[in-house]
């Protein structure tokens, strides 16, 4: 997995390439914890995301909870495979997916 990160002022965007699973989710979580402070618009670009496991979902949930307090969080370019996971787990109800 590769994480590309782009910060513009208080906007932070992550583009995730590859699999977000038990092995790789901790990397994203660690980086998020480091960078999320002071961010008001957090977005994830999932155009190149191939797979998300429950560990990945957990990171999204944590991020969503943080952003509920300090701004907004958006997920973009979700493909069908990932969308199905979001639907099955009910995450599509709590995430803002564009």
């Amino acid at each position: 997995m590769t994480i590309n990160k782009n910060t513009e002022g208080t906007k932070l965007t992550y583009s995730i390439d590859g699999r977000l699973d038990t092995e790789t989710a901790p990397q994203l979580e660690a980086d998020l914890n480091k960078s999320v402070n002071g961010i008001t618009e957090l977005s994830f670009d999932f155009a190149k995301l191939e797979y998300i496991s429950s560990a990945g979902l957990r990171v999204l949930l944590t991020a969503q909870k943080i952003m509920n307090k300090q701004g907004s969080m958006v997920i973009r370019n979700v493909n069908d495979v990932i969308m199905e996971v979001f639907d099955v787990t009910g995450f599509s109800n709590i995430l803002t997916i564009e």
Partner: protein
Amino acid sequence: METILKLSVSAMLPVLMSGLLYLAEKKTKFGTLSYRTRQIITGILFGAIAVFGTEFGINAGGAILNARNAAPLSAGLIFGGPAGIIAGVIGGVERWFATFWGAGEYTRFSCSVTTVIAGLIGATIRKFMFDNKKPSWIFGLITGMVVEVLDMLMIFLMNMSDIHYAFTFVQRCSIPMIPINGISVMLSLLIVSLIGKERINIHKEHKKIIQTFQKWLLLRIVSAFGITCVFTFVLQTRVSNNDTNDLLTLNINDVCADISDASDANLLSLTYNVASEISAAEDVDDDLLLGLSDKYDVAEISVIDKKGIVTKTTHEPSHNYDMADGEQSAEFLVLLKGEKEYVQSYQPTSDDPGISRKYAGVALPDGGFVQVGYDARRFQKDIDEQVVGITKNRHIGENGSIIICDENGVIVSDRNNYQGKMLEDTGLSPDKLSAPENQRFTAEVYGETSYCMYTVSEGYSIIAVTPVSEARFSRNISVYVTVFMEVLIFTSLFILIYILIKYLIVDNIRKINKSLSKITDGDLDVTVDVRTNEEFSSLSDDINSTVATLKHYIAEAAARIDKELEFARAIQLSALPSVFPPYPNHSEFEIWAGMSTAKEVGGDFYDFYLIGDNRLAFIIADVSGKGIPAAMFMMTAKTLIKSLAETGIEVDQIFITANEKLCENNDAGMFVTAWMGILDLATGMVTFANAGHNPPLVRHRDGSVEYFKSPSGFVLAGMEGIQYSKNELQLYPGSMIYLYTDGVTEATDANEQMYGDERLKSILISLSGADTEAVCKAVKSDVDTFVGDAPQFDDMTMLCLEYKGTSGFTEKKEG
């Protein structure tokens, strides 16, 4: 002044070029060219500046002043070795041929060679001392000056045939050229630093060893150099002073001796004449003596008897004077002891120190002696002929001379035809002659600052003069050459020590640090292997053995953790119902469940229990994450849900309450996906709720299999205040429901292909008629076949329930 200004302008060229090229490298396409191309271009440009320096050097009294060497040095230090060498070769070769169109032949060799060397030095220093980085300005200054010193020393050593000229040349060139070249290189480095926006004094909490070392070594070397220079200067000055004094004294003594020889002979011959007239006279009385003193124009004639008493004299007060009474007069008593003659030098008389006279005595045949004294005016008249011109051709050294003047300050003899003139005409004030005799003083003589020394002999003042420039010449050569040599020696010493320390210690420490940081990053298989000397060898060994010990402990700790995880796993598994069939008394259903665990303890679970006699609750769930936290969360969730279910509330209420409880104190942000159903044993009606879990598969009585999808609620423990809906699924006798976790559908093979929903559905279709245990085992074995040797990271959990119906089951409707 104008020379310095012009020279400064030419010295600014390398600075300007450095700034421009640096900017070009940073801001324009020049920076995108290959390293080699950039080096060549930079080398040529700086070479051109060196050529410019040669062609437009400033002529200062025959010596051409320029800042040629600054260009290759700047190129080498700032832009890289190859550029420096190219610039040096261009500048050096051009200088060699420049003699054909006007450049000085005199410094041809040394200047060409030094320019090439300047490029080499810039390149070498950058590469070996500064790790191919730009050094700080202070090293630029020093290097620039040292290279120029080398140039000067070479000019001097290559032209030893005329040391005088060579030295004058070097002396004239070195003062402007050495600092100007140094400053030029220094400014080049500074301007590049400024453009690069580096702070010039970077304050860091921890300095690198090599920087601290650099600073101290430089400080020590410079002070050692300073002390040696001062010592050399003082010593050489002393030696030169002594030599000058000796030279002056010796010359004065020679002249004194010549003069006193002349005056001694003169007075003696007079005295012999007087003595012979006295001997021939019948009656010797004062009148005779007065007559003789007039005749010979002497100041005083006395006759002394055998006892040393003055019997007759022209000098009335001396009558009956005992010669033994005065120190000066007593000397003549040797004439009573057999000496024939005695001459004294011009000096104050014993009975009146206010009067200076020269005396001579000659023994009389009848005993006693005659003493004749005359004053300076008288004997100078006689010996002037001998004294005049005595020093006309006398040199002290090359340009020094001796001036003789009489008591009135009229010059009697000198080298520059000042005879007859007054002493002050030479520039030397007669006041100076009130200083003690035979002591060196400095005065302006013949328009030149000179060291002088004088002595008074026979009434003449004899002044030895030597120009300071000449007296100091050998000292200056010694000091210059020694200082220049010392500059080179101390610089080489500095570089040598620096490079030694760098290679022996600093580089090794760097290597060790590199290995250590790999080790700290977690690679415990890295070994440190620095074996250049015993100390580092033993340090390497120590680090390696420490890491080995650490590795051992970590392995032990890991083993202990593995064991603890195994226990956790065992406890987790023992919490799941594992006896099948669990309810032998109930024929209405058949249930089988199993969990095959991945290596790491996970958070899957299944559960089933009867609620009252009529209802069977069954659940499959998956806690996010892995390890002990997931396992503990799973235990909490499982227990909580079971205790809620046993109160008899509806399945949606179970989830709503469980969610609220699990959200409390869930700092770790864990969540559970779960699918829970409650089967009414009498009717086959399953009421269920789904908290974000995969949809179950249902196998109908006719063998058709489908995913039973329903609106999914959010995962448990994810967020407070989530509502779950209650759904229904009617089972008929022979219908089967198959629940699983994503460990099944997301099992991956070696090509990272997932097992997937379709394969799962197909295998279920193919298992038509099989009972719950067979279904679970067959799916498990199919998944195992699919993944092969690929490692699995997730638990694989499944639960299969077949509704058999009751004897009194009545079909309401089907289809």
